[in-house]
């Protein structure tokens, strides 16, 4: 077992025995990763923070049920990923209710990313902020499952098998989600990929 996994396991065992210092260590060590994950998934800072808080509270309430054979990191992101999904669903419900009132304006497009602040982009060399915005929108445009699989695998370092476990899917389904995610990212990332091309030989203008 990797030292990181061993550490999570140890902290969890201590927490199960009621050691609040272990709980503090868990929160402090993993809050950044959980918040980043939720933020990248939901595209909303406040909601990401709520999800992160709730994730750790679930860790706390489940402390005595946790099985030491479960990998802590995978388990933690299983919880976070479910809570994110709940947040998306309630967000969608809220929107459905709010739509007739024409509240739209802000908030209604924070996820899919309506064309925000279009600046005249320099033809070559994409600015960092613009690059970030392009990436954000490319990822936001993925289906929820593709986005979840992508974030868990690429950012949280979960293996396909662990992603499958966290999402309650088969290994085959995860593989196909990531292949499709990569395909869907293609068009949206094309400008960045072209900009980064090492030596643009034989590429169409």
């Amino acid at each position, binding site marked *: 077992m990797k030292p990181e996994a061993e550490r999570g396991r140890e902290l969890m065992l201590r927490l199960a025995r009621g050691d609040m210092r272990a709980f503090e260590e868990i929160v402090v060590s993993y*809050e*950044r990763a959980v918040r980043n994950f939720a933020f990248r998934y939901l595209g909303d800072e406040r909601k990401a923070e709520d999800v992160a808080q709730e994730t750790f509270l679930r860790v706390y309430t489940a402390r005595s049920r946790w099985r030491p054979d479960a990998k802590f990191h995978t388990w933690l992101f299983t919880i976070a990923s479910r809570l994110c999904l709940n947040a998306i669903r309630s967000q969608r419900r809220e929107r459905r209710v709010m739509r007739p009132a024409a509240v739209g304006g802000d908030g209604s497009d924070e996820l899919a990313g309506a064309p925000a602040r279009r600046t005249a982009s320099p033809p070559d060399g994409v600015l960092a902020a613009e690059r970030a915005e392009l*990436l954000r929108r490319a990822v936001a445009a993925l289906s929820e499952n593709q986005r979840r699989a992508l974030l868990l695998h690429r950012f949280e370092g979960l293996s396909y098998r662990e992603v499958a476990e966290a999402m309650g899917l088969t290994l085959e389904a995860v593989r196909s989600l*990531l292949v499709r995610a990569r395909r869907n990212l293609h068009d949206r990332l094309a400008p960045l990929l072209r900009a980064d091309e090492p030596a643009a030989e034989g590429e169409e203008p």
Partner: protein
Amino acid sequence: MERTGLCAECAELLVPYIDGELPPEEAAAVAAHLAVCPACSRAADEHRRAWALLADLPGAPAVDSLWPRVAARSRRIAARARVLRRVAAAAAALAAAFTLFYFVSGRDNSAALPDPDLLVHLPVVEQYASLDEAGGEWLGEDLDLVQAVFELTQEIEDF
């Protein structure tokens, strides 16, 4: 088009291949193919660069640690669990007392008894307390019920 001249079979395998998620034999086959197929080799390279690009996807802005808030909320959960255990014990005692009362008096003295709704709720209290005992999750929507249980505690104590 990206996939012009790209072998159909290889297209499905490239992403898992660069993710290191193919079984050894399959990975070896893809590697051998990439060595001789410039189109697939270019595609694999593009996948790699796409994944590398993603690293720049912004994370959450830095804020203060969540620990103080999480600690406060977890303390409240623990306190609630203690209250619930007490309520469950009281509820069990109360239920036994009622049974005894009916058995001894042998007739309907309901005027002297508390709200019958209370009796109906007793199993709920016990259920919640045992759920909590098992470290059950009753966050979110369950909070309303927990609130109701709290009010019940009050009623029982008043009684």
